[in-house]
């Protein structure tokens, strides 16, 4: 058991229990800034814990989630490092302090805890949730095809055995419903950042249609700035653009749902790819990945702070 966040190893991958224990430690070390909110449960009953970074007063908020695809281990690892960075920078780094004094930050480190747990116990390459599909032997839904935005379109699959199965209906997955309900109930989320791996891309709406978002130009400019900031540290090359134009048509995704529900700054990160390991990114790359991603996150958070709407 690692009882203090300072002695926690940020350069290795951790189980769900270790991550949840670490969350408690972070909250106890920064009680005036960080709190833990249980926003719901997974289909197998695991809690969904969100870290809230706030100085009080229910300010406009930035949402960040990691680990929606179970096998993308680098994303919760990056989320842990990011949480510590936010907490330890407040009051020391003027930009981070300014951001937190004007905006709350919600950080979900493991969006798909059932899947994540399954990757540690049974199948390292599992991607989906672990919900039962009535009438099928195949388990799980792709949680990034389950959102109510272009749900069920050709950029997803109706086959429960497929990796991109969209589920029986929008928000059928309790993990997705919990997040969607939380964000809608909050009512003042201004940015939604969802962290994936491993294509080195920064994507924004839309994925389900070729139509450009009304805020396309601003989103594109900000993506360019964020990708440039990210690359400045280790020269990691990022491409950016709309999901549909940059990679493929994808229906029912987080960012499209966010944008369609009034959250202008909706982005998907695809973290680094060494070109050699795919999802099995060596643990030695966790901290460099988190460090470079942080620069892009800060660029976006600063823009959100400076452009209220």
């Amino acid at each position, binding site marked *: 058991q690692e009882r203090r966040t300072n002695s926690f*190893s940020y*350069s*290795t*991958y951790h189980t769900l229990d270790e991550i949840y224990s670490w969350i408690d430690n972070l909250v106890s070390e920064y009680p005036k800034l960080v709190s833990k909110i249980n926003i719901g449960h997974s289909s197998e009953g695991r809690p969904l814990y969100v870290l809230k970074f706030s100085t009080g007063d229910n300010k406009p908020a930035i949402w960040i989630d990691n680990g929606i695809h179970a096998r993308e281990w680098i994303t919760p690892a990056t989320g842990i490092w990011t949480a510590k960075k936010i907490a330890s920078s407040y009051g020391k780094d003027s930009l981070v302090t300014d951001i937190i004094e004007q905006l709350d930050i919600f950080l979900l480190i493991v969006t798909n805890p059932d899947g994540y747990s399954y990757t540690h*116990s*049974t*199948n*390292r*390459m599992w991607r989906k949730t672990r919900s039962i599909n009535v009438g099928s032997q195949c388990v799980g839904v792709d949680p990034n095809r389950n959102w109510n935005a272009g749900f069920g379109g050709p950029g997803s699959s109706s086959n429960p055995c497929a*990796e991109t199965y969209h589920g029986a209906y929008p928000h059928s997955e309790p993990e997705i419903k919990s997040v969607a309900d939380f964000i809608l109930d909050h009512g003042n989320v201004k940015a939604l950042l969802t962290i994936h791996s*491993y*294509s080195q891309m920064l994507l924004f709406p839309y994925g389900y249609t070729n139509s450009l978002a009304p805020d396309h130009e601003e989103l594109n400019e900000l993506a360019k700035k964020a990708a440039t900031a990210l690359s400045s540290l280790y020269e990691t090359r990022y491409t950016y653009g709309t999901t549909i134009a*940059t*990679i*493929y*048509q994808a229906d029912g995704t987080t960012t499209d749902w966010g944008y369609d529900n009034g959250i202008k700054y909706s982005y998907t990160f695809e973290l680094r*790819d060494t*070109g*050699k*390991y*795919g*999802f*099995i990114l*060596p*643990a030695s790359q966790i901290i460099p990945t988190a460090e470079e991603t942080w620069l892009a996150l800060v660029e976006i958070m600063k823009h959100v702070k400076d452009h209220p709407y």
Partner: protein
Amino acid sequence: QNLYVGDQVLRVYARDNVQLELLRQLVATEHLQIDIWRSPTKLGLSMDVSVPFTSLQGAKVFLESNNIPYSIMIEDVQALLDQEQQDMKASRL
């Protein structure tokens, strides 16, 4: 525990729309049990597919007979997973 002994991950490049369509056919062939790790359908971007050991020959024959370039990204997925487990154990110690 799922075992991936001998499974490989191939990085495949589609040069034109015809090859892209052939790739879609390949991954849609259910009995090959190909798992798409990264699936850009845009020309010029690579696609990473995890291929079970038993389907390797069929998949490679398909790619080579259609002149679709590919490289082996991961030689043996299980070896890499074993290494990852060892690294995690060592880190805990």
